[in-house]
C-alpha cells in the first residue's frame, strides 16, 4: 500500500478536486470529515457523473455516495483486498486504522501496485 493519502473535505468544489488530481497526478482523492475519518473516495471515473454541471458550484458531497465506501485494514491479506477490488470493480481501496471506532486513513491500495506485483511475480502476504 501507499502510506498516507491526499484528502479533501465534502465541501470542496469539484473544480478544486480536479485540480488536486491533476497537480498530484493521482486518479482518486480521499474524502474525510473534520475528524479526519474517511467518508469516501472520489475517482476520476466518479467525476464524470458531474460533467456538464458547474464544477465551481458543485461540491464533493453532491456526487459522493458514503454507502459505497470500501475500506480494509493493515491486517487484511492482499488476496482478500484484491478479491474485493475485483468484485466491486474498483481500482483503489482505503486502508483505515484498526482501532475500534476509528476510521482514520492510513493509506491507499492501488490497482497499479497489484499489477506491478503480478508483472514481477512477487508474493506479499499482508498489506503492511
Amino acid at each position, binding site marked *: 500500500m501507499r502510506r498516507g493519502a491526499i484528502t479533501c473535505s465534502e465541501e470542496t468544489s469539484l473544480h478544486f478536486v480536479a485540480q488536486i488530481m491533476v497537480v498530484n497526478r493521482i*486518479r482518486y482523492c480521499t474524502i474525510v470529515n473534520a475528524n479526519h475519518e474517511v467518508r469516501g473516495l472520489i475517482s476520476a471515473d466518479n467525476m464524470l457523473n458531474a460533467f456538464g454541471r458547474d464544477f465551481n458550484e458543485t461540491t464533493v458531497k453532491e456526487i459522493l455516495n458514503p454507502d459505497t465506501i470500501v475500506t480494509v485494514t493493515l491486517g487484511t491479506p492482499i488476496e482478500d483486498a484484491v478479491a474485493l477490488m475485483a468484485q466491486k470493480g474498483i481500482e483503489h481501496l482505503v486502508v483505515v486504522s484498526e482501532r475500534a471506532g476509528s476510521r482514520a486513513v492510513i493509506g491507499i491500495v492501488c490497482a497499479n501496485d497489484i499489477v506491478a506485483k503480478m508483472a514481477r511475480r512477487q508474493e506479499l502476504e499482508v498489506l503492511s
Partner: protein
Amino acid sequence: MRICDLMHKGVISCYTEDTVKDVAKMMDDHQFRSVVVVNERGEVWGLITYREMLPYYGEDISKLKARDIMRQYRFEVDPQWPVERAVELMKRLQYYHLIIVDPHVGTKWPVGILTSFDIVRYMAQLEAGHFEQLLKLGGEKT
C-alpha cells in the same frame, strides 16, 4: 472541445496471442492503465485495463493469453467527436478508456486513447503556469 484535443496520441498495444504476463509488464513499464489488444492486421480487437487483470492475481498469468481476459471492444470513436459525446458514452457503457480510431482508413487502427483522467484534466481547467501557483497556495496552507 473535441476528443482529439484531449486524447493521448498513440496507444500501447499487444496481440491477442500475447500472454497476460507480457501485458502486466507493459502496464508496469509504461505506467499505463490500459493496453489495446489488436489482431494480426493491427485492428482494435479488445481492451485490457486493471479491472480485467485483478481477478487473475495469484494465478499463473504466463499461461493466459490476452484474448482470454480482454474486454471486447466493438464500437468506434471518432477523434472529431465533441468531448460531451465521449463522456456520455463512457457513462452509458461504463468504459472509462475509449480507444480512438482513424476514421479515414477502412481498418480500425487505433490512433489514441481518451480516459476519465483526461476528462478530469479538462475539468481542472489549469492553464500553463497555474500549476506552480496552485502548489504554492497548497504549501502556504500547511
